[in-house]
């Protein structure tokens, strides 16, 4: 079974990424992995999609980044941490998403009824 439509994912990326960073200070690669693992591999985020979202959030003051350089050999990582502005943003995005899901569900259910009514008329 495949993942959700790309456009649908694109519209919710900010909410998804912000939620992960809110749970735990994260770096780019770990965010991609978290999304993959938590969705059992059904959502695979590409780097070209993730980093613009991180930049947007950082530019908006929702998150901040700090480079961490290991003392010995290792990979330098840029950790992202949520800021108070980001928490507010996350709250707003969550509410918008829940409202949207509720409304779409209403529409889908209404649509199903409409179709069955239309079907019975034709029949």
């Amino acid at each position: 079974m495949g993942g959700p439509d790309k456009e649908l994912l694109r519209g919710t990326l900010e909410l998804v990424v912000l939620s992960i960073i809110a749970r735990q200070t994260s770096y780019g690669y770990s965010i991609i992995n978290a999304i993959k693992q938590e969705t059992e591999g059904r959502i695979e985020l590409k780097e070209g999609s993730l980093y613009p979202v991180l930049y947007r959030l950082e530019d908006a003051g929702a998150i901040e980044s700090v480079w961490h350089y290991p003392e010995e050999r290792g990979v330098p990582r840029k950790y992202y941490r949520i800021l108070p502005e980001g928490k507010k943003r996350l709250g707003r995005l969550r509410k918008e998403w829940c409202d949207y899901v509720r409304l779409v569900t209403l529409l889908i259910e209404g649509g199903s009824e409409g179709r069955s009514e239309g079907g019975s008329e034709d029949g």
Partner: protein
Amino acid sequence: MDETRRVEQYVEQYIRGVLRHLYLKDEYRRRVADDLRSHIAEASQKKPVDEVLKDMGHPRKIAAEIMETYEKDYEKMGFLNAIAYAQHVRDSNVKSAAQVGGWPLVHIATGYNESGERNVAKGIIAVGDIAIGVVAMGAVSVGVIAVGALAAGVLASGALTVGLLVALGAAAASVVASVGGAAVSGGFAFGALALARLYAMGAYARALYYIGAYGESAVVPAWMRSLVEGLRTHALLFAVSLSVLGLALGLVPSVLPQLLALRKGGRGIR
């Protein structure tokens, strides 16, 4: 060359590929380069770097996704990058946040918008297919200083130009002074074909006072005579100066962003 060095070069080449299509100021390009470098290093601890880069996809695609975030953000692009990006994507519309009298300081617009309407650049400095501004550069440009294939302004330069004061171009018409292949003016015209009300100089010239290859008016002002003498004496210098002016006004605005793109592609950011 050892394996580590080969891998490093391979990664840097990939990052340069992304940066080549990233029309942003250096500080933002550096941010992308650093993040990609760290990301690739992290991912290649789990699998071979070739596979990591293959999974990431074509550098152009990564750059395109990043540019979607910034394509309307003039402050992060800067003037030359914004022009280069407009040439690259064809449908572009970016304005500076700074405004003067309600007009953006810089507006760069090419191609069409989402509704299929043509984007028109209107700004103090306007660059685009159609540009209207104090300084306007475009295929069709209207401004105080207008440069373009079709240009109209107080000072106009291009192929077909109409100038209130000065017009330079293959075909140039103005109230005060025109210089071009075919120059028509109320005051002074200079060109292969020069027609003016007062003064004309050229291969074929007609005006109240004129000097042409096929004759001159009964009375010629001394300054015109010395100008012709000067041009004859320094013909080469004059030709070179005109060529440089033509290059500066016509080619540079279109070629410079391309050169910038090449320069960006040729170097990495550390």
